[in-house]
Each structure stands twice: as C-alpha cells, then as structure tokens.
C-alpha cells in the first residue's frame, strides 16, 4: 500500500476504536447515573404512605377475622377459660369476668395474624384496639425518611356483652339471695343433675372460615353447679 492510500483506512480504524470505546463507556459500563435519582425521594415518600395504608387495611381486616374467631371461641366456652368446661364459678379461676375473658381470647386470635395489641378496651359493646405504630424507615443518598402511623381499630361487637353481663349480674344476685336460678332470668335453661345450663343464641351472624365459609349465630352456653357456685351466702345469726 502506498502512503497516500493510508488516510481512509487509518480514519476508519480510529473511528472504530472511538465508537467501541464510547459504547463501552456510555452503554455497557454501569455508570452511576445521577438522573435516576430525580423523583426517587418523592417516590419513596409516597411509598411510605402507601405502605401505611396497606398496613392499616390489613390490621383492620385481621381484627375483623380475629373478632369472629374470638366470638365463636368465647361462646363455645361460655365466657370462661376453656379448662372450666363452660362452668361458671364465682371467686375462682372460672370467674365469668366476661370482658376480661373476651379480651384474652381475642388477643390470642389476633396474635395468630402477627399483631400484638398495645391496648384493648371494651366500652358500650364496642371494642377499641390500639396496635403498635406502623413505622417505615428509608435511608437514601442525602435523604432520610422516617414515617410513623398510629394504628387504632374500633368495631362494634357482634356479640351482646351488655346482655351477657346483665345476665351474669342477675344470676349472681339470685345466688346471693338464695333464689332458684330458673326464676331469675328469661333465658332458656336446662337442668342436668345439679347443673343449671343456660343457652343464649347470639343475635348477630358471624363468619367462620375453615375450608368453607360458615355463617352462624353462635350459641353462648354456660353452666352453674348449684352446689358449688363460688358465692358465699352470709348466714345471719
């Protein structure tokens, strides 16, 4: 090849080198692209709100499902500990402290969903559950995000605790006054030897999910051993 013909081949060769290197630097190499951070902080901020919404939604649903299960369990056990076998005995471990016992059952059900309540209150047949705050933290370049959302759920109870408490008071008064139990209340009763069995059907439906959905009005059943009620009647001499 003569010297005069070297120009174009050389030019082609240099163009190839330059383009290959440029392609490598601009496209192939993982260059930290500052433009990708535009709007990322704002996106994270809104994402924090969205996570909060998701958490709040799930907390509310977990409470609903737990309440249904708790009402079912509570009614099945007659408002006392499962070991008591539906037997009410005052001033003992089988004390029918209905609100406290319901809260215990509900707390156990709620724990199955991974929620641990900070506070649970029952007032006028509605329940208020205060859960741990939802917190979301994100650390980005030049941007730290910390979001905290208090979660509280309030629901009407699908079991009439007021009615059950009223019934409990009537029964206790009867026992203290020594009156026959079947005269104290208008509720359905049944005598089984020395046991007086009370059955109260819930006025509202609840949903129970096992393999299928079951809609039912749980029946609240409790028994009182007339010979061992736990109530000490004062003897006047």
């Amino acid at each position: 090849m003569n010297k005069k013909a070297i120009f174009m081949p050389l030019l082609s060769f240099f163009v190839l080198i330059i383009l290959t290197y440029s392609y490598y630097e601009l496209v192939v190499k993982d260059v930290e692209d500052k433009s990708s951070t535009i709007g990322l902080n704002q996106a994270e901020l809104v994402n924090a709100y969205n996570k909060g919404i998701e958490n709040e939604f799930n907390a509310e649903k977990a409470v609903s499902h737990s309440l249904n299960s708790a009402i079912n369990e509570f009614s099945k056990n007659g408002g006392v500990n499962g070991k008591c076998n539906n037997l009410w005995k005052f001033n003992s471990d089988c004390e029918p402290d209905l609100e406290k016992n319901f809260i215990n059952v509900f707390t156990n059900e709620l724990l199955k969903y991974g929620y641990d309540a900070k506070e649970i209150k029952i007032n006028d047949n509605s329940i208020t559950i205060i859960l741990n705050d939802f917190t979301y933290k994100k650390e980005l370049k030049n941007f730290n995000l910390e979001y905290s959302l208090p979660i509280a759920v309030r629901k009407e109870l699908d079991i009439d605790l007021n009615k059950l408490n009223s019934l409990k008071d009537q029964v206790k008064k009867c026992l203290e006054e020594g009156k026959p139990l079947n005269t104290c209340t208008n509720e359905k009763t049944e005598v089984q030897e020395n046991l007086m069995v009370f059955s109260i059907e819930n006025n509202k439906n609840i949903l129970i999910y096992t393999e299928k959905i079951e809609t039912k009005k749980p029946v609240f059943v409790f028994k009182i051993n007339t010979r061992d009620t736990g109530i000490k009647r004062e003897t006047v001499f």
Partner: protein
Amino acid sequence: MNKKAQFETSHELIIWIPRIIALVIVAGIVFFLITLPVKQSFEIDKLQETILRQRFLYSENCLAHNDGKVNSGIIDKSKFNQKNLDKCFEANDKIGVNLNLITDKIETINLNQKIAEKLDFCFDKKHFTCTNYTYYVLIQDEKKLESGLLNVAMIKIK
C-alpha cells in the same frame, strides 16, 4: 523553488481538501452517535405534575377524607369545591388543572383557569407539558360511601 516542487505542493494541498471535508463529516457523525444515548436535558415537568396530582388524594388539605385518620384515596365530597381546591393548589400558579368528579353526574372544577383553558392544545408538545390520569375513587358524602372516578388533567406552559 523549482516548478516541479511547486506543482507537487499544490497537488498535495488539493488532495488534502477532500480529506479534511471527509474528516469533518465523519467527526460530525461520530459526535452525533456518541450523544445519542446521552440525556442532555431532564424534563421534569411530567414528574412535577404527577406528584402534584397525587397531592389531591393524599392530603387532607385537598380532597382526602379525614374521620380521625386521613383516608388517602377516599374523597370527602364536601372538599370538592373551588375555594378548597384553590387553597390546596395555591402555590402552583404555572400549572392549570381540570378536575372532573364522575359519579352519576359530572362535576368540574378548574384551577388556574387561564392556563387550564389551554388543555385543548396539549398536542403541541413543544410548548406544553400535559398529563391526564383517571383515578378510581371512593367518595364519602355525609354517611354514604360510593364509588366514582376522578379525572385530573394538568397543563404546564414550557
């Protein structure tokens, strides 16, 4: 200088002129190719409009319903009025907004009316940046909760 040398020098110069032209053309092409993947400007108007649009639904000072807690995505019907929305959007006088709340009827509110009126010119991408999105919303009207649509069209003059 002898005539032969003179002739050769001028001949060399003549040969170099097309080479220089070719070099300039090739350099220009190479420069164009290299700048192809490189973003030379960042158009953030659409990003700005998207973020401002979301404010309508996330902020209780705009449309978000508040019943002790702010329910993002649920619109408080009583907040869908000109006065409240003007106040919610008052910091942004360069963007025109057209809001349509669609239930069984359509309610329309314009913010920054003079700019919002130009929404029909959104085809002119050189002068306007426009965004348009329809949200599926829930509307709390006193005790009734119903579903509806909220269409938010925005326009910004470049």
